[in-house]
């Protein structure tokens, strides 16, 4: 019996299907450790070896890691929510309520998305605070600091665009106030400096570009939905790839220079 199981295991492990996917064994040797990474689809996600100081939570707070985990949670729950949510003025609010009160586990998924979103904004700030306080923005990491600042902005924009999607009074007025700031954009906002020189009007300026009109209406909902679900996440993902890659190229997590 035992012998048979062993034979089955051997057959599987030596089959072409298995060997085409896993090209080395798991004996704990430095070579296998490296191969595990180098021959892996997740090659750049995790380094082959982690130095002891890199996992010192009192130093890193693991804030970047937690931020990334929350981003993954948001991506998964966000895609799940997309199965029910329609970004149309007539349906958006009802779909949100439907998710909350009738869809099985809908409340759980929506709240996971909501709390992970709040959490990500907090952890991203704490991550920045930690990087600043440990001086981890200094050369040669200054490029990654800039990438991080852009990622922070993208996180806030993701949070802001997602805030409109429930399409209730709170979100509509929050976005009204938020986009009213675009009125005062220099050159591009119709109430900003040099507006007359450029010739922008309430109908054609930075705010109208965001809103798809002059008021927060159905076009705004659709526009923010596309930004929230497609444009910003893809942009953030690309920059995250660069961010993680730069961490490893510039001395590793919390590595001394």
């Amino acid at each position, binding site marked *: 019996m035992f012998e048979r199981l062993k034979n089955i295991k051997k057959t599987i492990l030596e089959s072409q299907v298995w060997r085409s996917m896993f090209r080395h064994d798991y004996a704990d040797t430095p070579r296998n450790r490296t191969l595990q990474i180098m021959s892996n689809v997740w090659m750049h996600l995790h380094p082959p070896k982690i130095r002891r100081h890199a996992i010192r939570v009192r130093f890193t707070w693991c804030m970047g890691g937690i931020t990334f985990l929350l981003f993954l949670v948001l991506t998964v729950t966000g895609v799940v929510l997309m199965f029910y949510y329609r970004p149309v003025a007539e349906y958006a609010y009802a779909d949100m309520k439907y998710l909350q009160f009738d869809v099985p586990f809908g409340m759980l998924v929506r709240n996971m998305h909501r709390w992970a979103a709040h959490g990500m904004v907090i952890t991203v700030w704490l991550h920045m605070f930690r990087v600043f306080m440990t001086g981890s923005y200094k050369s040669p990491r200054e490029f990654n600091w800039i990438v991080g600042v852009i990622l922070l902005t993208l996180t806030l924009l993701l949070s802001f665009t997602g805030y409109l999607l429930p399409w209730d009074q709170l979100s509509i007025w929050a976005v009204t106030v938020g986009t009213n700031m675009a009125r005062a954009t220099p050159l591009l906002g119709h109430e900003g400096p040099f507006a007359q020189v450029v010739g922008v*009007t*309430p*109908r*054609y300026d930075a705010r109208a*570009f965001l809103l798809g*009109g*002059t*008021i927060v*209406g159905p076009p705004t909902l659709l526009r923010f939905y596309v930004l929230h679900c497609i444009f910003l996440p893809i942009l953030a993902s690309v920059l995250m790839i660069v961010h993680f890659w730069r961490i490893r190229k510039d001395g590793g997590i919390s590595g001394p220079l």
Partner: protein
Amino acid sequence: MARLTGVEVQIEEPGEATTWSRRDFLSLTAWGGVLAFLSTISVAFLRFMFPRVLFEPSPRFNAGSPETYQPGTVDTRFKQSQRVWIVRYEEGSFFAMLAICTHLGCTPNWIPADRKYKCPCHGSGYYMSGFNYEGPAPRPMDRVQIALGPDGNLLVDKSILYSMRPGVDPDEQYPDSLLKV
């Protein structure tokens, strides 16, 4: 290329005076094409994001016959629906003003007894002309265009805004905002 072909052969080495090599020309043409393409679609996309038709409430409305407005009053009949006061001075001229406080955007009230607009949020006060004189409001309230239609009715267009600068009397800033009847 000449260097690779042989020792003796002196193929026309591109002279210092000649302009671009063939390679430079093709390369620059290709990059120029890419750049032209990208800038064209960027401009097209920018325009794409501003639709020609907006499905929004019209910014224009008919404010009725001028005779229905008493001289020397601030008329609040369109305040609820359009957020606009129609004001008529003693001498008979009209102007239309947005009921938006220039401090933080609340809706002030016209107080006939005090002959002033008063904002309930932070106490900004304005004269009948919209000129701010008390409270935190930084500048006079903005006016919009009012005109006389072909049928003799008043037409208000909220898309044409007279944005007020601080410290200058609104009637002097924008004489055009006044409609003489």
